[in-house]
């Protein structure tokens, strides 16, 4: 097994794990649908479990925001509901069943979370409320859900986007349901926001991070086998020069072994190597 054989999902989980520190608290929802479940739950859980088994043994994983460090090894399949009998009976260190519960949301107890959206814009605002005007939408979507809290009350946010297209990565979102860096860090301060904001935006083509002074999203790395022109063509706003952007680093052989043999030996979280397509196919797949 070589590092070159890592799937995109394993590669992203590894990058995320590297960004996590010991004693942090990570919050992930329990998403449904194949792509959303892989990007919104599978990759984040693999990343957190990988971090727990390497440099962050005291990291706390909050599955569905409620189940503290659940024992996934007892599961026959990943749950597809956040608050039903299967989760009630899942062994865990603690279960959140009240609001407010164990973690004090507004005191910043949750270090990082994962969210997805229908639109992301150049300053990192996200939208899951509507396309078109709010009072006469072309498309009505599910609503803000917990995005506002994810992007402000958590200390940082990873935005996981299963698709990378110009209509999704737009100059300005139609409705701000999660605040990025409008006006940079100073802009957030002027809005009265104490901390938090998007750290990475991950797509099938690249990883974005932020110039937090300028408040601009920028390409941090491009995945193996993807060209800068492809990233540019898939993005609805100008990305500036991409000549010096590095390739997204692959996991080490030891990290790959941990993911495949220890963290997700039964492929409950992310598809196995035979079924996992390469980066571009992943984008088309969804």
């Amino acid at each position: 097994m070589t590092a070159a054989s890592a799937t995109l999902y394993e590669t992203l989980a590894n990058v995320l794990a590297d960004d996590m520190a010991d004693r942090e608290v990570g919050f992930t929802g329990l998403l449904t649908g194949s792509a959303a479940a892989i990007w919104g739950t599978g990759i984040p859980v693999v990343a957190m479990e990988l971090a727990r088994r390497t440099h962050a043994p005291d990291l706390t994983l909050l599955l569905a925001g409620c189940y503290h460090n659940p024992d996934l090894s007892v599961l026959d399949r990943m749950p597809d509901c956040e608050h039903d009998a299967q989760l009630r009976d899942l062994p865990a260190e603690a279960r959140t069943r009240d609001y407010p519960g164990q973690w004090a949301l507004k005191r910043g107890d949750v270090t990082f979370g994962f969210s997805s959206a229908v639109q992301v814009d150049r300053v990192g605002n996200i939208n899951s409320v509507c396309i078109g005007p709010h009072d006469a939408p072309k498309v009505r979507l599910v609503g803000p859900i917990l995005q506002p809290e994810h992007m402000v009350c958590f200390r940082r946010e990873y935005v996981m986007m299963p698709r990378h297209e110009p209509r999704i990565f737009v100059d300005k979102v139609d409705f701000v349901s999660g605040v990025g860096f409008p006006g940079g860090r100073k802009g957030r301060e002027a809005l009265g926001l104490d901390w938090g904001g998007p750290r990475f935006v991950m797509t099938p083509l690249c990883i974005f991070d932020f110039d937090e002074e300028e408040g601009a999203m920028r390409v941090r790395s491009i995945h193996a086998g993807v060209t800068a022109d492809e990233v540019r063509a898939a993005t609805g706003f100008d990305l500036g020069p991409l000549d010096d952007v590095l390739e997204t680093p692959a996991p080490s052989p030891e990290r790959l072994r941990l993911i495949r043999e220890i963290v997700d030996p039964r492929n409950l979280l992310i598809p196995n190597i035979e079924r996992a397509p390469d980066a571009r196919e992943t984008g088309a797949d969804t």
Partner: protein
Amino acid sequence: MTAGTSKLLSIEDAARSVPDGARVAFGGFAVYQKPMGFVRELVRQGRRGLTVVGSAQSYEVDLLAAVGAIDAVETSYVGLEASGLARQFRRAVEAGRLRVVDYPEMVSWDRFRANLENLPFWPVPFLGGLDIVTTNPAIRRFDCPMTGRIMYAVPPADPDVVVIHALAADERGNVVTPAKYLLPQSQDVLMARACNRVIVTAEKIVDPTYIRRHADHVQIASYQVEAVVELPWGAHPTPALGAYNADPNAYAEWVGAADSDAALEAWLNRYVRIEDNDAYLNAVGGARLARLLDLGDLT
């Protein structure tokens, strides 16, 4: 020990007590333990002009939107989770028949906490930059009188009536919450403590002796409850924790009913425009219901 006064009502009478135009909060959360039997009765009675206020909505709002029973929804989410978008809700909003007031998820809970504490608003410091504020004149910005920092005053949920579905209650309105409850059940408790009018549908009306044996789990006490209704499988097709799981076949039927007007009519004729809840259970079928039982962990 006195027998006390029974608050037991028929589902018809309980639903009739919710007038057209009322602000209603349905218990449960997202696709979990929604008082669906009560909602079907509201539709049966042709209720109009309701506003639904809550934290996360699903099948109840989709059904009410399909028949034009609601004018507005104030919440953080309307969707069917694994079954996708709530298509009837979506159509109604896009056609301008239904207004949505969007709130962040935990702020939606905080709005009920404001009512529970009898406060005129709930202070939220983290709404800057959100179109949740720019599209909602009911949220007012103010400067914190202590620190001067930016704050937003969010209006309370202010439901006229709360409707929850529980496993067990006695005739006086003491409601038992299972020991191993989850967030949807604590949402019920919060809502019930935050409103003067609380209607409880229950899987089973139990003897006072049963209530006294579970006193530690009576989180909603009789004096908070206006009416109780015995309504077996009253959350179906959503799950009732400790009694039954979600019914994926019924979910699929509802999703299919959004394919055309004719499909919706057929669905309504089969499941709503019928005699009562017993007729509903017969329409679903006893064999199918029997397979949804939640056995718990048996320890």
